[in-house]
Structures are given as structure tokens and as C-alpha cells.
């Protein structure tokens, strides 16, 4: 790693060149940044070894948004632990940056690639699995499969399940809501939805803790571990920027005032992908909207005292990295299905049922009001603050932050 200081007309610029990043900054401001990774690089160039050795190779394609990807990674980890053999190798095909950020040193992953490169035609694997809500066996090498009874059992389980519940594998969004009900009835939630018949015994606490790549974001912004609160208002970039799941911006602004009053020693940090999708909240100490990589986000969430968000990907990230409690504001989606028990899950029972996937573009306008979601509007900043005060304790020694 090398850091150079460049003096231009009396102004000092810092240039950092590491294995992962090229960055030019002026003071605390990041002017330019390029992320590079040459370690288990997720690129379009596949490095598939010849499949004529004795190893049993499995390819798993993860579908869905950020949260789905992380839940999928946890599933693969459970799969690996179930098979537990040095002869079984699992490659993951996932969305960009997921591998680099969360799977760098994961022992259950052989390699990771872009999900768009997944193809059952390449004959490189003995078992192809596509993981959406449920695992779907796409193709397998029957001869090699016979040697592994556990994998055999797993494949049979998945195929039987698909046979009995074919409608769940149509990929049609109108069945997603029914999948949620199906899962809830089984006394399961999103994190273990894919675990058919509890074959893998997936627990709520993820079976692997991602070892995050290095990030200097805390130092760059002079943030101390557990001494700042993160907030986010946004949804996955695969969805429209307006979403029913978002809490009104003015509510965030009011909440920030309350947070500053109740937690005066804590910095308030806003996260987000860009200003268009995540407009500035008033009163924050630091806005990192558009200034962070996924690694930075994961690092920030890992070390934050508290994270406040709607139901979405960052909540799953914080859970995966074992960052601690989040305050999650639920509305159109089911808290019973998506909520993690360690979190402060807040929902006002305005509607008798969730509206996720009830119609196409369900998240682009309240089904009942046509505009902003009634269920989100009903959650007041005071309610949120009261719940935070009830569940969180300010700690001076940074060791015990949760009640």
C-alpha cells in the first residue's frame, strides 16, 4: 500500500494506492475512488478447472436483491456444513461485489462469480442449484452423485418438494406472497425459508461471519466504534426509487432531532447509494450518501451503535456481520416473515394484511391510498424513539450496547 501527499497550489491532496482501491481525497472529502480486487476477483473470466477430477463440484446461483443474496450465502454455508467433505467444492454465482465483500475468506466457498455467468451448459459442475426462495435442482451428474449419499438425499428432497409445489417455481411474482404464507405456516422465516424439511437446520444467527476486507472509512470520517448511529432511507437499486417501504423523510428529520437530544455524544451518519435515491436527511453529522463502497457500508454497519432503516438489504448486512440491533420500520412487508428477533421491529397494524407482491408494482404506490403507504405514515418518530429508549442503553465503555 502506498500513500502520497500531493501539493497543488498550496492545497494538499492525498493519493492512496492499495490492492483494493485507488483513491484521491482532499481532507475528509473523497474526490475520486476506484475499487479493485485481485483476490478472488469476481469477473466475467471464469477460472473453472477441469471437471474430470474426483471432486464433486456444485454451482449455486443466488437470485434476488441484497438481502436475498446474504440469506443465500448463509444457506450455502449450511449446505457446505451438511455435506462437510474436502471432496465437495461449492462455487457461488452472485451479484456484483457480494463475493468480494462477504465471501473473501469464506471457507465454504471455492470460488465466486457473477450470477450472469451461471450456465448449466458449461458441464463444469456435477450439481447445479438455483436458489431463489427455494432451491431448485437444475442439473446433476447422476453417476457421481451416487457416491455421496447426503447430497443424494438433498437432491431428492429438493426434487420432491418441487414436484409437490411446482407453482412455487414458476418465478411469477404473484406467487411470492403465497410463498411467504407457506413459510410462516411452517414456523419459518425468510432466513430459513429455503431449508426444506429443516434438512440443513439453519438458525437465525448466520452460520458464518463474513471477514470483511479492510476499509478505512471509520478513520477517514473519524468515527469511533459504537459511537455513531447510522440511518438509511432507500431500497434496492433493482426497484424504483420511490417505494412504499420508505418512511417519510420528514419523519427521519424529526427522529434525528430526538436522537441528538437523547444521544448527544453519538454521531448521526446517513448512508445511501446516491443522492437521487437517498435525499439528504436534515441534522445528520455526516452524510456518506454516494461516498462508500459495499465494503465501507458493511464496515460501518458492523461498528455502528444502532442502525435505523426500513426493511431492506442493509438490515440483512448488519445481521450478517453481527453488528447488533437495528430499528426496522415495517409496513408493506411482513415483520413476522422478514424480522430478525434481535432487532427492534416496528409495525403499525393499519392494514389487516401485508401487500407485498399482491399486485404487480405493489411497492410503487399504496394499494389502498394510491400514494404513500398508510402503514408507514402511521409510525411516528416518537414511537420509534420510545422503542429505542426502551431497548438501547447508552454505554460509556462501548462494551454492552444492547439491553
Amino acid at each position, binding site marked *: 500500500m502506498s500513500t502520497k501527499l500531493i501539493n497543488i497550489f498550496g492545497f494538499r491532496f492525498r493519493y492512496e494506492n492499495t490492492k483494493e482501491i485507488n483513491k484521491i481525497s482532499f481532507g475528509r472529502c473523497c474526490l475520486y475512488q476506484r475499487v479493485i480486487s485481485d483476490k478472488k476477483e469476481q469477473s466475467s473470466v471464469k477460472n473453472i478447472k477441469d471437471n474430470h477430477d474426483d471432486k464433486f463440484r456444485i454451482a449455486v446461483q443466488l437470485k434476488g436483491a441484497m438481502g436475498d443474496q446474504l440469506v443465500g450465502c448463509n444457506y450455502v454455508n449450511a449446505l457446505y456444513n451438511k455435506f462437510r467433505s474436502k471432496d465437495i467444492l461449492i462455487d457461488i454465482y452472485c451479484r456484483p461485489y457480494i463475493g468480494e465483500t462477504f465471501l473473501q475468506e469464506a471457507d465454504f466457498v471455492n470460488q465466486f462469480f457473477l450470477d450472469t455467468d451461471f450456465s448449466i451448459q458449461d458441464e463444469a459442475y456435477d450439481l447445479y442449484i438455483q436458489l431463489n426462495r427455494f432451491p431448485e435442482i437444475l442439473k446433476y451428474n447422476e453417476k457421481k452423485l451416487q457416491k455421496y449419499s447426503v447430497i443424494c438425499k438433498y437432491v431428492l428432497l429438493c426434487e420432491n418438494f418441487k414436484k409437490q409445489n411446482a407453482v412455487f417455481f414458476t418465478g411469477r411474482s404473484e406467487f411470492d406472497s*403465497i410463498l411467504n404464507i407457506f413459510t410462516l405456516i411452517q414456523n419459518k422465516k425468510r432466513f430459513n425459508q429455503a431449508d426444506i424439511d429443516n434438512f440443513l437446520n439453519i438458525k437465525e444467527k448466520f452460520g458464518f461471519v463474513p471477514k470483511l476486507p479492510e476499509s478505512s472509512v471509520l478513520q477517514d470520517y473519524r468515527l469511533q466504534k459504537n459511537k455513531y448511529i447510522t440511518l438509511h432511507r432507500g431500497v434496492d437499486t433493482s426497484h424504483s426509487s420511490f417505494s412504499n417501504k420508505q418512511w417519510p423523510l420528514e419523519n427521519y428529520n424529526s427522529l434525528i432531532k430526538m436522537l441528538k437530544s437523547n444521544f448527544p455524544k453519538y454521531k448521526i451518519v446517513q448512508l445511501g447509494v446516491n443522492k437521487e435515491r437517498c435525499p439528504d436527511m436534515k441534522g445528520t453529522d455526516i452524510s456518506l450518501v454516494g461516498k462508500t463502497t459495499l465494503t465501507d457500508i458493511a464496515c460501518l454497519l458492523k461498528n455502528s451503535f444502532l442502525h435505523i432503516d426500513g426493511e431492506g438489504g442493509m438490515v440483512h448486512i448488519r445481521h450478517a456481520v453481527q453488528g447488533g440491533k437495528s430499528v426496522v420500520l415495517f409496513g408493506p412487508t411482513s415483520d413476522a416473515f422478514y424480522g430478525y428477533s434481535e432487532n427492534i421491529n416496528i409495525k403499525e397494524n393499519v*392494514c389487516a394484511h401485508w401487500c407485498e407482491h*399482491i399486485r404487480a408494482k405493489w411497492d410503487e404506490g399504496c394499494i389502498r391510498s394510491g400514494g404513500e403507504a398508510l402503514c408507514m405514515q402511521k409510525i411516528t418518530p416518537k414511537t420509534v424513539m420510545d422503542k429505542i429508549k426502551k431497548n438501547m442503553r447508552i454505554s460509556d465503555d462501548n462494551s454492552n450496547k444492547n439491553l
Partner: protein
Amino acid sequence: MTIQTKIYKFMGIPFLRFDHNWEENQTVSSIKKSPVKKPLRIAVWNGGGMGDSLIDVAFLQNLRKFLPDDTVIDYYAKSYKVFCHCPFLNAVYPDIRQADKNQYDLMLTNHRFWIIDKFDEARVQKASSVLYEFCKYQLDLRNNILRKNNDNNNLYVQYALLLGKNRWEQVDLKEITGFNRYAELYLPLQPDCFKILSRYGLKRNGYITINRGVDNRLSENCPKLWPLEYYQKFVSLFQKKYPHIPIVQIGAGDKYGVVNANINLLGKTSIEETKILLKNALLHIDVEGGLVHLNHILHGKSCVLFGPTPVTLWGYQQNINLKDNVCPHYCEWVIQDWQKECLRGINPAPCMAGIYPETVLKAVTKYIDTTHAYKWFCQSIDMPSFYDETIYFVGNFERNVIKKYAAHNRIVLLKNKITPEDKAFIRGTRMRCEYGDIYNLPLQNNSASVIFWKPEENSAWQSFAFNELLRVIDVHKQIVIDTLTLSNEMKEQFSFKNFSNYLTIKKG
């Protein structure tokens, strides 16, 4: 009256025609055609159970208000026999596959939501703008919410619940026709069937009915069924507590078991007799199913055991609805075979096994111990007077009597057949004609202010009619009975030596 009208009147009832020889003929009966213009013809089909059909038919009764008088509505359903006397349906048949599609302008299938199988837009729009708007909305609903998928009943359940609607309101989510959960269905009773009560020594409100059954195609593993041993236990506990109240088991047959009821009428009653039994029972005990919905329409009270189906969708506020929350969510239509066995693979379904007989007894006891017979006070009077009241007239009153009260009150004529003469009579006035008859008044309990009743001459069932009047009249409000055709048996009840023209009865 034109010559054509006289011929039609001579040939028979203009609205209702039930083909008794359906099974033999196996053909669609010929249709009367208006010599002047071709009426709008509508076919409605429901492949579901009796509960689904009852709601459909209630909707069709309401829809009639928006249609030209000569509109033909044919209803196709497995439980068609329940509706064979409904005057607002032209014909009822068991199976839509027998229908000739060419003879209909509009064909609807009810899957909870409506599938429009045939839609002559021009003719429907010309006949009724309300019906047209309704059909257009259903098309949009199916394309938008259901994404043209006909197998997505569960999604539609979710959508209805989200909008705060129940099963009744599912048929018209936007209330385009004004149809909602408070709508009434006129289901005429056959007075001759009252004999079944005397045959088994049953008195009105003196017995309870109990049923264990589901759609006949389903097996004992159906998750909606309450365990048979629980029924036995409940019956035993009830008989110990209320030895004077007999339990009558009703149902189509003994496929789902026989409980140790006092009277076993499994497979022994016609649907008309079953209606009478339900109507006059103190309480009906059942799982969520067709007889519960039938009892609701007959204004009876049920104790309903819920499991796989949601109470908010299927439950009636007037009933005793019991549910054990062992499962975090209902499972109705989560998979297509949800009725074959419990989704969790447990038998009996834990949601039903969690409702114990003692719990049911407790709920039933609470109801029975707080019900009481109606008290009433009567007075003989020449001509009662009313002002600014809603007055229901049941029976063949003279027109001049009705007109006299119409000057200062709101008048509703309850008729089991609404004839063109009736319509001509009320035209241009504030009076209304509704379907109804004395044995099953389309009114909620304690909801009417004034009812005039002219008993049918020589009717042996006037006491049942009187009980029905007591049910609907509000406390301290008046029933007015024309004493001219009152039977001697009834007169003995009122203990007057000399009767004036009318008796007024006030409920205490």
C-alpha cells in the same frame, strides 16, 4: 293488459322455472323470447361449495335491481337445489358444461373473483351501465391483481383482507353494485317442511343442530374437520349440562361419522327440511362450511370452529367464532390441495385439534344462558296509526290500506314474487318492493319498527310466522296483524274474546 301478457300469465310464473326433470332431459330447457326485443341473457357458474353459491346468489339478487325486468339470469352450481325457489333466478342447473354458450350475452364464473368467459360488451352496456362497469372492473382486477392467473385464490383472499373486505364483499370489491356484507338473500322456505319439527318433537329454539362434514369429495383428512372424538366429548358434556335440549345431527350422510346426538337425521332430510331445522334451532354447531352460511342467511346463530380459513374473511359477527392460534397464518389456498390434508403434515390439523370440547361448551353455555324467550304485549285495535316510520307489509293487503299509510310513512312491500302489477303499483311513489316472505324475513334481528302482517288463510304454520315477526321487530316496536285470516290456534294465544280488525303486538 296485452294479449301477450295474458298468455304469459296463463302459461305460468314469469320469472322462475326449475326443470325438475333435469337429470332425465340433460338438455338446456328452451327459453321464452320476448316478441318485442331480445332480453339480456346472463349465465353464472360456481364450481365451489354451497357457501360460495349462497354468496353468489345474494349478489345476483342485488344485481337484479340494476337490470331490465326481462333480463334472464341462469345459475349453474353443484348446490343448485338450494335455489330452486328463488324468484329472481330464471333457472338453476347443476353444471355449466351443459350450457349453450351461444344463447348468453354474458357468462361469468365465480372463483371468488369473477372470470368473464363471454362478454357482449355492446348489449351489456346498453342493458345496464352498472353491470357494464362491474364487468370492466372484474377484467381489470383479474389482469392486474391476479395477473390472469385463475388458480390464485389465495392471492385474492389476501387482497380482500388487505382492503378490509370479507368473503361476501369479495364478489364486488369496489361495491359497484352496492353489495356488501350486510346484504340479504331471499331464500324462501317451504312451509310444508315445518312438519319435520313435529315429526321429531322439536320446538322452535328448543334444540340445537350439529354437523360434522365438508365437501363430499374430501376425505377424513381434510384439515377443516374437527376431530370426531371431540364431537363425541362435546355432545356428552352438553347433554349432561342441558338434558332438556336435544341435539340433532344433520348432514348429507354419515361419511364423516356419527356423533351420539339425541336425534340422528343424517341423510334423512331434504335441503328444504334442513333449512327449517336450522331456522328453528337455538344454535347450530359446525366447522366453517356451507350449513353455517345457509344458517346465516336464514338468520340463525352458529358456533363455528375455525381452522385453515380466516375468521376475518369467513366469519359472521353474529356468530360465535372459535379459533386456536397455533398456526401463525391461515392456509386456505396456499397450495391447491390445501383441503386434502394439513399443510404441515399433521393429522388432525393442529388448528382444529387445539379447540377443545370444553372450550366450545363454555362458549355455547355463555350464549344459551343469556338467551331468553321474547316477551310481548298485545292490544286489539281497529286501525293503528303511524307517522314517519318504515312500515313493512307482508301478505296480501288491500292496496288502499297500503296507500293510506304510504302518505306519511316509508313503505316496503315484502313479496315472494314481485309481479309487474306490484311494480306498476309502486311506480312514482316512495314505496319499495323487496323479496321476502313471512317465514324468512330479509331483516336482521330487532331491526324493524313496524310490520304489518296479513296471515295466509288456512295456513297451519302461522305460529312460525309469528315467531319470525318477533325475531325481526325491535324492542317496544309494533307488529300489526290483520285478524281477518288469523287462525283459531293463533287467536287462542292472544286471549281476546272479541278481536278488532287488527292486533298490535309490542315486544318487551
